């Protein structure tokens, strides 16, 4: 009886804490969204109020939609992010499996070599990277971005996945070998499904910097046809520094697709995590 009451009390405390945190997490997004629909005066006078009939205004969105092809930018960002993630996860998991599973000469050196990349800010290699892309004719293509992001994401992916792959039971793999499965089959059929939670984590980890990167699109693919959403909205903010209707509308338009996408994928993500855990 006592314990049940304590449980209820704990639950209430937990929900209160979580709710408070939710408010904190969503507050900035909320502020940007409501103010993007208001007149400039109302934005400054009552920043915390939702738009009403007086203060409602779509001028910001009108300016934004006239200036840039946000749908196209969005599509570019999607392609770059999804393709890069695919290669990071595939190549990263393969390398991590080799490092975690096999004892070979130079294993730990290879691990350290692949982890070096986490420690260096890739931005300083910009000029060399740009020269490579110029030499291979990849400037102003999405391929250039995909290559850079894949290379940039691999170290972390290998680092995390190796750690998780070491936790996969040896008995399972040995049983597979006795059943005559090839090493490739063991990797793809036995190990990969088990490290799905880790893969999901790596995916989230890498998705964010790729989606939000400003620097490499600016240097490697600034053309109108290859502009990403983040670059598009940054150019926009630069153009309308003091036109806050437009800035807030541009920010909202950069936020909404990511949030929608995330809410949609978060189910898969959580399912991936739980499925792996339940086994």
């Amino acid at each position: 009886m006592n314990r049940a009451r304590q449980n209820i009390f704990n639950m209430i405390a937990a929900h209160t804490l979580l709710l408070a945190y939710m408010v904190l997490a969503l507050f900035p997004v909320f502020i940007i969204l409501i103010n993007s629909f208001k007149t400039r005066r109302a934005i400054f006078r009552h920043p915390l109020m939702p738009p009403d009939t007086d203060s409602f205004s779509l001028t910001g969105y009108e300016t934004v939609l006239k200036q840039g092809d946000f749908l196209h930018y969005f599509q570019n960002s999607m392609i770059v992010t999804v393709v890069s993630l695919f290669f990071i996860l595939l190549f990263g998991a393969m390398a991590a499996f080799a490092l975690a599973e096999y004892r070979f000469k130079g294993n730990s050196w290879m691990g350290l070599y692949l982890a070096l990349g986490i420690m260096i800010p890739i931005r300083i290699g910009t000029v060399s990277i740009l020269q490579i892309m110029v030499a291979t004719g990849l400037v102003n293509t999405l391929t250039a971005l995909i290559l850079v992001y894949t290379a940039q994401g691999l170290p972390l992916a290998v680092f995390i996945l190796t750690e998780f792959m070491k936790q996969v039971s040896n008995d399972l793999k040995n049983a597979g070998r006795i059943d005559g499965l090839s090493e490739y089959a063991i990797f793809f059929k036995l190990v990969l499904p088990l490290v799905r939670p880790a893969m999901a984590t790596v995916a989230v980890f890498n998705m964010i910097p790729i989606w939000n990167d400003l620097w490499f699109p600016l240097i490697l693919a600034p053309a109108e046809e290859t502009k990403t959403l983040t670059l598009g909205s940054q150019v926009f903010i630069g153009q309308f520094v003091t036109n806050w209707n437009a800035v807030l509308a541009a920010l909202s338009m950069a936020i909404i697709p990511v949030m929608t996408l995330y809410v949609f994928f978060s189910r898969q993500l959580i399912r991936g995590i739980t499925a792996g855990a339940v086994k």
Partner: protein
Amino acid sequence: MGMITTRKPPFKWHIVVFLAPAVLVYTAIMIFPMIDTMRLALFSSIDNHQVFVGLKNFKTLFGDPRWSEHFWNALGNNTWFFIIHMLVQNPVGIALAAILSVPTLRFAPAYRTIVIIPTILSFVIVGFSWKLILSPLWGIAPSMLDMIGLKSLFHPWLGKEQYALTTLALISVWQFIGIPMLLIYAALLTIPEEILEAAECDGLTGFSQFWKIKLPLILPSIGIISILTFVGNFNAFDLIFTAQGPVAGPNYSTDILGTFMYRTFFGYQLQLGDPNLGATIASTMFLIILIGVCIYLFTIQRRLRRYQF
């Protein structure tokens, strides 16, 4: 068992196949450009020619007060930035994960989804929106404090030397807390039911169960998030750049190694970029991070027992 070891093939091609794609892409696009840039640290530009000068740039960085003062300032700020993350981000992240992993908790999926939302926002958005909220002109923070009668607590935090860095560190914590939460959450879910049931039989539930059973089991994951935080913080750049600009004001109080390196490498306003000294700073950053990671790999990680389930 014996059968497998005696039939060892002469060369394991599959290892090469597993490693090759990652190693190739990574070497070509990351390591090669890095080495190409880092070697600049050993050169100086004299009349548009790169001349080999050995360790002279490092001597300048550490020996010339015009550079070393900025370097130590940035390193100190960076350390503080990291400490705040370790003290706030990771404990709060673990606590959130612990609460969320309680099987009977309702609405858990919704909570999980929302905690990560700040993480998916770009630095442009995070920097801009927090600058707005804390802005003395726009008045959101002061009027909210006013509502609860605490207006006197308001300060122009981002403009005061004593508060700016801590404020930015907390904004960064706000943004990235989803990552430790997610990693710990995944680790908590992999703890086998049997262990928890056994603990419950011994009368361990709730908080004491977390403290005595779960926490020791997730120590390796806490180790990983600590080292990732370390690496991330010492490479950090974007948030401070978008919120405070390349000079990392007020009065360099938010200057961290990343912004110092960027300003030196690429220049700022009338200050021309100096790729040689920029590369010197980058190499130093690399060494600092390498030392940190080695300490982790060779001391801490070895002590953390790895559990195989």
